[in-house]
């Protein structure tokens, strides 16, 4: 799971997709997750980093993480998974 390479993320919580011209606002937690996705970190790595920094247990985080990923997919911000 990887964020599209041309997606621009500002430090102030804005996301811009130059392919479609769409802009998005994002909260702090979402911004950090996008950052980790940009570093090609795996879901397990992201879970351990986020639960280290935030008051959240791994099970609860997983629930919100995959909900967030589904929204990124809906907005077509993720690279399509390699079918092979």
């Amino acid at each position, binding site marked *: 799971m990887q964020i599209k390479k041309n997606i621009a993320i500002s430090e102030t919580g804005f*996301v811009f997709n130059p392919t479609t011209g*769409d*802009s*998005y*606002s*994002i*909260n*702090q*937690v*979402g911004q950090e*997750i996008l950052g980790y996705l940009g570093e090609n970190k795996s879901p397990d790595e992201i879970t351990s980093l986020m639960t*280290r*920094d*935030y*008051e*959240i247990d791994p099970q*609860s*985080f997983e629930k*919100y*993480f995959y*909900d*967030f990923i*589904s*929204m*990124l997919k*809906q*907005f077509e*911000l993720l690279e399509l998974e390699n079918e092979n």
Partner: protein
Amino acid sequence: MAKKPFERPFIKKLQAGMPSKFGMKTQAEPITHIDEVAVPDLLAEHGSPLYVISERCIREKYKKAKHAFTTRYPKVQFAWSYKTNYLDAVCRVFHQEGSWAEVVSGFEYDKALQNGVKGSQIIFNGPDKNDEDLKKAIENDSLIHIDHFDEMYSIIAIAENSGKRPKVAIRVNMDTGIYPMWDRFGFNYENGDAWDAINRIMISEKLELVGLHTHIGTYMLASNAYKVAAGKLADLAYGIERKYGVNIKYLDLGGGFASNNTLKGAYYPGSDTVPSVDEYAEAISSAIINSELNPRNLPTLILESGRALIDDAGYLLGTVIANKRLSNGNRATIVDVGINLLFTSFWYEHEIYPAAPVSEHMEETTIYGPLCMNIDVLREAIAFPLLKKGDQFVVKRIGAYNMTQWMQFITLRPNVTLIDTSGKVHVIRKEENMELIRQQELIPEHLK
């Protein structure tokens, strides 16, 4: 290093559109305390969901309304509308402030008596008063507001046997320039029914006509409608004085003043469109004072305002059960408050606030109750903060009708609490339990 508080990750597409000069706040201000009592403490102590009523707010609202009328009209009397909220503790706050009782059934009548209201200070409205109710009301010198001719003849028959002369008023419906016109209560002004009723009462001499009453509608957004109504009642009273030489002792303008809740489908929020109590007071008082009635002998003005006095004092506290995505990707939040506890969600776009501070991010959300029913929707679409399972919230302005029109349905009804003026919390109606529900049921022998 201390961990940071977690908020659900959130991304929202920004939509370009025309900017609005009526732009709403984009951040939800939390309601963390009600009358200095912390919301989490209330829920921990009394369970979720939970009704909370602020006694301080009731008294302030009442005093403000009373002030608005008494500074404009010499003789004013409020009568608490029992159907709006007839929990005994709530009624007693109003009675302590000086309100009489306005009831619409034998059940409410008995409740008012048990709350210590004198029979002569109970106004008995409503289309359904059986002979037993009427006998009791006549015996106690209550003010009976006649709704139809069948009732009038029942009262005359009872009066003949009891030897008492019942104190009555007639209910008058009329065109006040608003739509829909309420014509189901009482006798019509324009077509002469009201005069017909007055003549029959005056000629029979069995009843004492002491007042004239009207209830022109509910959630009235036009104060001018009250001006028209008060003018027409004053005109009837003047006509009675001229024709029969009888002074009508009171004009009762009923209730129907709006609260600041926003009606479903309304373009602007209720807080921007609802007339103030001063506007209602000005419309009514000026119409009576400017009528033909002798200013040295004006009738008492009775008001049966319910919603406008109690709505703001009520809060419904609850907890988020779950979040989910609907088929179109929109967010849905399921909470433990259903429409069975928040009946007014059928009419209002209720304001729902988080109970703890949240970030500025909001997401368009549908808020569902916990009932397994498709209609159990508190808000179809609300910009709502990112609450997660277990987070608490507060529904504001729910004091009117919810604690009378609620249903025991699928779940049991929760505790109702009152925060007194010193900040002490009292349970004023205990949560229901299985025993209470089942004790009303009987099982036939063959099913045991």
